[in-house]
């Protein structure tokens, strides 16, 4: 049987990789993908705790996380398309319309 700590370490590692991607990448679409990695990492933790405590609440929670991820991606990619129409770039350093 796999100890719970293994799942938590996997989850924390994936979350760190997601944070790293959000911080160092400049392509807006890849930044979105890294946010997806972070959401998935949270799901692992929820489901692992669920299994080890014999409850269902965590699975419902990760179901909700999936709903929010789907909503976030659809709206976020629509924003990226609208931005691309205006500025013809998805480089986050060049998108500073709302800065000062």
């Amino acid at each position, binding site marked *: *049987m*796999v100890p719970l700590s293994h799942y938590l370490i996997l989850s*924390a590692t994936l979350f760190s990789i997601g944070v790293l991607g959000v911080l160092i990448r400049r392509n807006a679409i890849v930044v979105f993908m890294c946010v*997806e990695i972070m959401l998935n990492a949270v799901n692992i933790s929820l*489901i692992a705790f669920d*299994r080890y*405590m014999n409850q269902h609440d965590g699975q419902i929670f990760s179901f909700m996380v999936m709903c929010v*991820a789907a909503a976030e991606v659809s709206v976020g990619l629509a924003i990226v398309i609208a931005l691309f129409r205006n500025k013809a770039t998805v480089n986050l350093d060049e998108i500073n319309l709302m800065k000062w």
Partner: protein
Amino acid sequence: MELLIFYPLALASIILALFVVFNKSAIGSAVCLIGMMLGLAGVFILLQAHFLAILQVIVYAGAIMVLFMFVIMLLNLKDDDTKWKIRERNVWLSSAAGVLMVGVLYKFMDATADAEFNSPATVPENFGTAELVGTSLFTDFVLPFEVASILLLAAMVGAVVLAKSKVD
């Protein structure tokens, strides 16, 4: 025995996640992300969350990644591959975040190494099936479920409005 299944899955997921971050082309990142999602679906099956594993494949690896692929191909970013560069402005922030994350990882290992959870609870035969999760979803969590449906509707309307009109 389960460790033999868990380690390759976890290792593949982590390596693919690193490829997502360090890939030059966005489409390559998306393909690696699909692989990572499938690996995580395997991890979910290992945790006996069969319903969530199927949802992971259908919703994440299916619907969401198809959306990503569509947008990447629609935008047709040709010169993006050659200009891959780390953001210089964020180097210090990234280093600080890295140090923090290593601390969090260490704390995780410290706190869970000899925790009581290392001996998992015995679960019923139908744990994590669509039947049990669905029963829980439609009895105890029926209000969050309806709120989620309204959220999805709002996201759909928002996506249509944002993508249709030109922003002034």
